[in-house]
């Protein structure tokens, strides 16, 4: 019962938090660029407006995929709040990723298609890293269950500092931030317009936007696990991490996915090995 309440709580609270985070993100980004920036609540206005638009679709499977994407994202956040199994949560989240790709592929627009392919490559890049992060958490705490992990008495950050950086890579990709913003061009649109989202519009774009808020919270939630022992620690950790993300977004050019695949895999794997071997040795 408690689990259920937590889960519902998560599902309700997460989009609000996610929207706020995204509003703050936009404001801070603007300030970094010496702009005044939009109001903090801007993301909510945006989504509300999207829901007020006329529905136009290109292929009705897109509607289906958008919904499933949202639900999978919400469910993964719910499971996260319900302190379920990390891997399971991640696989549930992968449902969303797969359906996002399918939705992109359903539209014949070449930009959508390319976006979907790139999205896949992003999934390909971050998924092993996240699984490795989870495995490393397992190696430290002996469980994949969040409730068990929370019983561990030290901040994971102390044992898995490099894994946290590896998670940072995944975070950058999931948050669609430069240098890894290829598939949807969340902040810019130079290469492929809006990538996977090109042919979504109106309410369906709104759905995806909300799903994205869930994903932000999902990934921040996982970051929070690295300093679960103190609430202050969590807040500090999340704030610095997110600020670092914004900073990176604003101080780097977008790279190419080929570079990403090579670089992130090699650096990510190397860091994981170092960290895990150190863990074994220590």
């Amino acid at each position, binding site marked *: 019962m408690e689990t259920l309440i937590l889960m519902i709580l998560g599902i309700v609270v997460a989009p609000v938090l996610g929207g706020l985070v995204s509003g703050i993100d936009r404001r801070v980004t603007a300030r970094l660029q010496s702009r005044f920036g939009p109001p903090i609540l801007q993301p909510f206005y945006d989504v509300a407006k999207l829901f*007020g638009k006329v529905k136009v679709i290109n292929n009705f499977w897109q509607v289906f995929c958008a919904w499933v994407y949202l639900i999978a994202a919400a469910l993964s956040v719910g499971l996260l709040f319900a302190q379920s199994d990390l891997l399971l949560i991640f696989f549930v989240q992968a449902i969303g990723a797969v359906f996002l790709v399918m939705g992109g592929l359903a539209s014949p627009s070449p930009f959508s298609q390319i976006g979907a392919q790139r999205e896949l490559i992003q999934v390909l890049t971050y998924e092993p890293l996240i699984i490795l992060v989870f495995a490393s958490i397992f190696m430290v705490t002996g469980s994949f269950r969040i409730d068990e992990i929370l019983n561990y008495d030290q901040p994971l950050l102390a044992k898995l500092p490099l894994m946290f950086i590896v998670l940072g890579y995944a975070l950058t990709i999931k948050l669609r931030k430069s240098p890894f913003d290829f598939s949807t061009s969340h902040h810019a649109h130079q290469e492929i317009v809006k990538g996977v989202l090109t042919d979504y519009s109106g309410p369906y774009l709104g759905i995806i936007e909300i799903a994205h808020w869930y994903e932000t919270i999902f990934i921040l939630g996982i970051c929070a696990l690295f300093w679960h022992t103190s609430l202050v620690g969590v807040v500090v950790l999340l704030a610095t991490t997110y600020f670092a993300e914004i900073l990176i977004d604003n101080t780097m050019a977008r790279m190419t996915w080929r570079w990403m695949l090579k670089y992130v895999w090699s650096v990510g794997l190397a860091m994981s090995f170092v960290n895990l071997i150190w863990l074994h040795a220590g």
Partner: protein
Amino acid sequence: MLKKFIDNSRAKSPWIMHFDCGSCNGCDIEVLACLTPMYDVERFGVVNVGNPKHADVLLVTGTVNPRNAKVLRNIYDQMPDPKGVIAIGACGLSGGIFRECYNVLGGIDKVIPVDIYVPGCPAKPEAIIDGVVAALAKFEGLKG
């Protein structure tokens, strides 16, 4: 309540798309300048989306010729309602100095309905901001 929020949000989040329809770039760069730190139209929730399917407001600069008229029409059609069109610069308003050229059909309103006309050659960023704000008034009037 939700409906009211949606209605109110419309005027708070005009996503714009800019289409250059054979402009001399003078107006284009002024439109772009609006997005940059000095003018920063994101204050009004404006995002330059570059994709008609996501846009609420279409900013058009330049003269219409047969070739880009089709594109303009297309883009306009791809924008989901409710939507607004702002014509910018003498060229977009009437064809400007090029009205009499052989490959110029005239202003934007020859092809699509225009809501706001922003005169100038080029229109100053301030004028464009005025235009966007005027377009927001249109969205505000639009309930439901």
